[in-house]
């Protein structure tokens, strides 16, 4: 009887270990499957060892296996639920981070600013002189002519 309790305890411990590690593991299903295999192997070994001449023991073992399997199922469901909760939490967190990042990277006011400044920037590039001997030339204050012109004449002068 003590052996059966021991086996059940080992099975529960292994299942708990498998479930707890599965929460952090990206492949919890594989982990649970491996743990279940280990438990099943141990149970099979135990059953093989104690089958001879002890049918009561075998029946008790079978009950123990059922109990262990039920415990495993419960643990698996709990682990799955925990994993789902964890995934949902991670997804929610990721969405929040994404929202925060987009907010930090491009504040709405700064995004709208260049659009509003475009006409001013265009005006600052230059305007066409309307009269005089420079009529028709593009000018921006002290600069007259094409900004891409290959030759630049600079005059340093005083009006006096």
């Amino acid at each position, binding site marked *: 009887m003590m052996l059966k309790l021991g086996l059940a305890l080992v099975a529960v411990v292994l299942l708990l270990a498998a479930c707890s590690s599965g929460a952090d593991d990206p492949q919890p299903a594989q982990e649970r499957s491996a743990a279940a295999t280990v438990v099943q192997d141990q149970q099979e070994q135990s059953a093989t060892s104690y089958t001879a001449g002890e049918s009561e023991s075998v029946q008790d073992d079978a009950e123990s296996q059922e109990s262990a399997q039920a415990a495993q199922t419960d643990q698996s469901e709990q682990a799955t639920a925990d994993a789902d909760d964890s995934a949902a939490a991670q997804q929610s967190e990721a969405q929040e981070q994404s929202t925060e990042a987009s907010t930090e990277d491009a504040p709405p006011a700064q995004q709208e600013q260049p659009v509003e400044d475009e006409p001013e920037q265009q005006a600052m590039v230059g*305007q066409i*002189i309307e*009269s*005089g*001997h*420079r009529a*028709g*030339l593009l*000018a921006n*204050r*002290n*600069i*007259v*002519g*094409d*900004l*891409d*012109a*290959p*030759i*630049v*004449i*600079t*005059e*340093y*002068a*005083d*009006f*006096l």
Partner: protein
Amino acid sequence: MIEELVRTGLVRFEYIYILNHGLPSELGALATECGGDQGHWWDFHDHFMTSWDFSRDGAVAFAASLSLDTEQFAQCLDNQTHLEAVENQHRAAAEAGFSRTPTVRINGNGGAIVADALIEQVMELAAQLQEEEG
């Protein structure tokens, strides 16, 4: 003639203030900048190149003759709105060694003061650039 070169797209012309004569130089530069606020920088440039009236009232009268907003112009002039920009131009030019007036540079190299010689330099440089591109 320089304007004709500019018109071809071959040349860009820039004018840099040198303030070698104190307040009159400063007033001329400030008035020109205030005229530039209303799109008439070159009108004031030409005005001060040919007129020797460097008074506030004279500048305001010229602004009125151009049908500018004289109130805005006078406010700009009285507040010395563009003083820092004008002084920065003068300071940068002086630091670069171009405080003698007039000084002409063509693509950063020495340029002739006399118009015909300057045009000849520009044409030579243009031919040189065409050869390099060709």
